[in-house]
């Protein structure tokens, strides 16, 4: 088991390395750097001014060297600005080059500086991830129990009327992406046209204070899309278990249906959905971006959009590291959890 986890962690590191390199190359293509120079300097720069701005700010070196700087294996660039003050990748404003550390990158725990927010990346990512964490927490709190209940009720008696109607509901929710359900929910529950106005159509105030009124719609929007899929998987798993031999035995013994479902079937039926729920996290990431944009909740997804649309290289790199780690870590947890939940695999 230990070796398995070690190998998976190794693959994870390699994947993260490859992905950040791809992101780095894509964000550092010449047209992107030119756009960055123009947004940071001014829009009417000439080509020579762009080149000199890039050289002054450390973007002039070869791409591999700068990727090494970001990783922290190559010493950071240093130089002087127009007024003769020392500047550099690792140099704080007003600091002399000699006092600054030579290397500062991912390995040293320094994620760099965001050009959009003019703040340290680690501070931004930490704060925004916290906000998204709350959103995710409530989504899971709503989505998982609802999906499991629907799935178990539907799979309990396969082909019954309850099964048909609940399955249709879950197909409908899987066919409704966040930007559709969000729009419909806002139109029904928050617009002045329908006039219900139960909830708020924006979650901006939820960043400081989460209330039922401002957080229901974003949470429901995300939970609905993910719910259908988990419910269908639970239904399939439950239906399979209900056809198993030991359930027939339990029935023939004359046990009441209620206790067959609760005591015999449920535990075995919930193994497969566990994997699905864990693998749902990467999906939620895209959902987070859409929902946070739609409801103006400035969490991680919103930051990713800001970083990407302004070509904020270091923020974007950190965002992709976080995203990749989340994806791979959930895969790892789901694999390990599956082994622990299912004795047949543990022994084999």
């Amino acid at each position: 088991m230990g070796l398995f986890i070690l190998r998976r962690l190794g693959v994870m590191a390699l994947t993260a390395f490859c992905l950040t390199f791809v992101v780095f190359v894509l964000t550092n293509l010449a047209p992107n750097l030119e756009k960055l120079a123009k947004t940071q300097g001014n829009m009417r720069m000439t080509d020579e001014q762009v080149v000199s701005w890039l050289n002054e700010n450390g973007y002039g070196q070869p791409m591999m060297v700068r990727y090494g700087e970001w990783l922290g294996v190559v010493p950071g660039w240093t130089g002087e600005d127009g007024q003769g003050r020392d500047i550099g990748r690792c140099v704080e404003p007003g600091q002399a080059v000699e006092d600054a550390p030579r290397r500062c990158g991912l390995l040293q725990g320094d994620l760099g500086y965001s050009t959009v927010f003019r703040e340290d990346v680690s501070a931004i990512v930490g704060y925004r991830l916290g906000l998204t964490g709350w959103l995710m927490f409530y989504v899971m709190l709503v989505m998982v129990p609802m999906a499991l209940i629907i799935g178990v009720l539907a799979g309990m008696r396969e082909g019954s009327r309850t099964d048909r109607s609940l399955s249709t509901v879950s197909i409908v929710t899987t066919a409704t992406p966040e930007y559709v359900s969000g729009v419909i929910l806002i139109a029904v529950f928050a617009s002045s046209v329908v006039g219900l106005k139960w909830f708020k159509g924006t979650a901006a105030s939820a960043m400081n204070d989460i209330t039922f009124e401002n957080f229901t719609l974003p949470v429901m929007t995300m939970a609905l899309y993910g719910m259908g899929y988990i419910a269908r998987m639970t239904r399939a798993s439950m239906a399979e278990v209900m056809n198993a031999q030991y359930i027939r035995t339990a029935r023939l013994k004359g046990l009441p249906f209620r206790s067959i479902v609760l005591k015999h079937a449920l535990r075995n039926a919930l193994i497969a959905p566990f994997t699905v729920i864990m693998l749902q996290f990467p999906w939620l990431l895209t959902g987070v971006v859409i929902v946070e944009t739609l409801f103006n909740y400035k969490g991680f997804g919103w930051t990713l959009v800001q970083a990407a649309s302004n070509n904020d290289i270091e923020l974007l790199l950190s965002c992709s590291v976080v995203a990749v780690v989340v994806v791979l870590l959930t895969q790892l947890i789901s694999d390990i959890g599956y082994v622990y939940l299912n004795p047949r695999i543990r022994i084999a």
Partner: protein
Amino acid sequence: MEPLSWGAIVAQMFLQFTPVWIALVVTIALSMLFQKKLGLYGKLMGSGIGLIGLGLVLFWLFTALFANLIITHDPLAVISGMKNKLPGTPLPDGNDVYAYYLLGGDNLARDVFSRMVMGAREVLKIAPAATLFAFLVGISLGVPAGYFGGTFDTVLSFIANLVLAFPVILLFYLLVTPEIVQSGLPTAMAAVLFLFPIIFMCILWNARYLAQPTTRAIYIGTTLVIGLWLYLGLAFNADPLGIISMTPNVLIVFVSVVFVNSPTVFRIVRGLVLDIQTRDYVSAAKTRGEGPWYIMLWEILPNARGPLIVDFCLRIGYTTILLGTLGFFGLGVSPESPDWGSTINEGRRLLSIYPHPALPPAIALMSLVLGLNLLADGLREESLKD
């Protein structure tokens, strides 16, 4: 003139869709008539869910085909005074076109109904084709990876997992920007991705007609001529006849969607091949002395078609959702474009005051994806019955 009531709006819309209803009734009636001869598709007529799904999909397909007959106004035309007007509002006097905005006007005073109908064409122009390409790429790589295994398989699986670990939205934000289009990367990706269908077809014919050189030469020659002609036109916009072309905007959207979808298809195909290659008929073919490519493409692949057809339907729906996501973030397509994602994006700004411009495309997108999901469900059920 008085604004139309809701009943009148629905009736008018029903009338506008007349060509679709006719085509729908004819198709379903013909399918019912020849049900016995149509195989899996014919069996679909007997399953309730599958039939509803098929109906929804065909509805949007015919809407896309007959969009020119259905629309009441030019989807890009602005008529002053109609900004954010409610559904059923009559046009100001002096306009001799259709007298009402059936579903109201958007915030640029364009007709919401016509834009929704034209949006179907935009979506159905890209989604099925992109899914097909993703399948061809996934199949041409997944079948040999599963069959041969070894280093080839390990490397390809690692790359597939790499792409899958990438958050889709981040990939889109990195790939679908004007700067990337400038750098020529989409053309390079298209050059690689669009090569797969041609290679696939050539290997397919080569394996089938290995013993008949003349037939083989005819098939491969035809494939190469047509394939390379399309290839030049689509990937490099250099069609010598000037018929086939793709604007850089559409190309980058198309390429990214294919790129995102093909690793999943690769994994599914690989899994299926690993399963099927242990069957007896594969051993029989090996004993007969068939070549590996013949076994892969003419023994294994046809037997994997059931799950692949079901996944194809689901995946068109997923691609539609992806295209909508792109439009929602305003990536790739031109801002004027009436595709559903962009229209929803435009409508969401004033959502709490004027929800009517955003709702029709949202419901349209949902019903198309729902139709595809139901169709896939019906197909799965019917194919499991034998």
